[in-house]
């Protein structure tokens, strides 16, 4: 089975250590959630997986059995690991069609655009509009569609609900839930939104101060209020 395997991954921004000895796995066809408070290392973990030049890292990352730890970020993308960053980063000066075209890959079949548009129909209505004309929800749909254009095996979504209205979050959740089956890929989501993740994810990892402190199924986590109190909420302090 094709897996994204992260083994003993540590990462730092200069002298500041942000991730320590984290190991996770993501299989094609499943959705895995990463939960944790602000600064727990969720975004850093995704950046370390794609080998962002912002940080230095040690450990091992393999996709489909091949090491991608030392590959440039663009080679990681071409090997089938797509990243959708938290602030979306759509190219404002380009049209939506041009944004999608940027991520076209040799991995993808010729009808990949049709597949993407058929499954994220909102994007088809936006093709001629420029990035700066889109709302937050539209931008999020476009960045997910753009990531899918490369026919990835694994999709890394960094806080996809950030700054979105509740109604759009519901629609986004339904859309993400369909992705593993429709595109035969694994989805790794980082989120602050507990319900969003536990409703979508088959399995969940909790990160705290750069370490993976717990993992299990969403149902197991929901049944463990002590874990939620200890690692995810601010208890009675608020």
């Amino acid at each position: 089975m094709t897996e994204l395997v992260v083994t003993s991954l540590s990462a730092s921004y200069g002298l500041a250590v942000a991730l320590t000895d984290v190991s996770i796995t993501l299989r094609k066809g499943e959705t895995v959630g990463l939960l944790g408070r602000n600064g727990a290392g969720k975004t850093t973990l995704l950046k370390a997986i794609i080998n962002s030049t912002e940080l230095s890292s040690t450990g091992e990352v393999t996709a489909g059995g091949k090491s991608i730890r030392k590959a440039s970020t663009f080679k990681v993308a071409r090997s089938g690991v797509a990243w959708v960053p938290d602030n979306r980063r759509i190219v404002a000066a380009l049209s939506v069609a041009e944004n999608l075209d940027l991520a076209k890959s040799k991995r993808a079949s010729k009808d990949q655009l049709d597949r993407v548009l058929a499954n994220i129909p909102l994007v088809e209505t936006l093709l001629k509009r420029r990035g700066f004309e889109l709302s937050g929800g539209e931008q999020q749909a476009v960045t997910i569609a753009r990531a899918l254009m490369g026919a990835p095996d694994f999709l890394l979504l960094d806080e996809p609900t950030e700054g979105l209205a509740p109604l759009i979050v519901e629609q986004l959740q339904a859309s993400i839930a369909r992705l593993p089956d429709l595109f035969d890929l694994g989805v790794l989501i980082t989120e602050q939104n507990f319900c969003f993740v536990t409703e979508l994810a088959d399995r969940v990892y909790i990160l705290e101060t750069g370490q993976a402190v717990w993992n299990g199924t969403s149902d197991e986590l929901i049944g463990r209020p002590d874990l939620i109190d200890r690692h995810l909420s601010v208890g009675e302090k608020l």
Partner: protein
Amino acid sequence: MTLLSTLISGVAYGVPLFLVASGLTLIYGVIGVLNFAHGSFFVVGALLVTTIIGSTVPTVPTFIIAVLAGAAVVAAVGMLTETTVVRHLYRRDHITMLLATFAILLIVEGAAEGIWGNSSRAINKPEILSGSTQILGTTIPLYDILLVFVGAVVAIGLFLLINKSTFGRSVRAIAQDQVMGEAVGLNTKRVMLLVFGLGSALAGLAGALIAPNVSVSPSLGHAFILQSFAIVIIGGLGSVTGSLVAALLVGVSEAFAVAYATYLTGFTFYILVAVILLVRPRGLLGSAKLGRA
């Protein structure tokens, strides 16, 4: 001089400035580097053409080959510079980059002096381009018409390259966000290398084209690079179209000053820079990053 001949003379004067400035602004818009060495690349293009043509009166094909060879060699020099020096400084501050490109300027100028010496060189135009023609009763030098034609071809070519090609799409994406560009599978290092090479080639092309009209020496670039930086400021940092408009504005203003207000000769571009900085500090079409060219 008639109005028409002044206008064409101004446009022809503006074309080499546009070529140098568009290279500067393209490199800044995509890579964020204000390349001080650009003026020395311009000179190398001019000096190479003087070597290839020598004291002969070249045929048109020989002249075209010499000009293209000058641009190509300068593109290679630019790409070598990007690979060996500039690439390693992308994450440093602007001052470090300015100092590094200034050092490259001194090294290239020193090397040019070592190879070609300090004396001025002049070359002939192809015979067919040495004369003039009559347009609407006005005498226009044929070489000026060639410069206007080349400027138009380069301007249209750059517009199509940046706005209509896959490469241009990658360039505009990387100009906005390199990290995102990498994340969607774009080889940003290669794109930036090619942009640096293209910008340098434009400087080399400008030097090669202007060589028959001036005395070529290793210090030729000083005046030109100053005016080119002024054009980048007037047009707006990062805007190729802005550079075109600004170069034409500077060229035509200077030509009209020469024809009708000689006391302003040499000062028109200073006046334009001052006015633009007062009225529109980001330049005519500037956005500080390459969006729509």
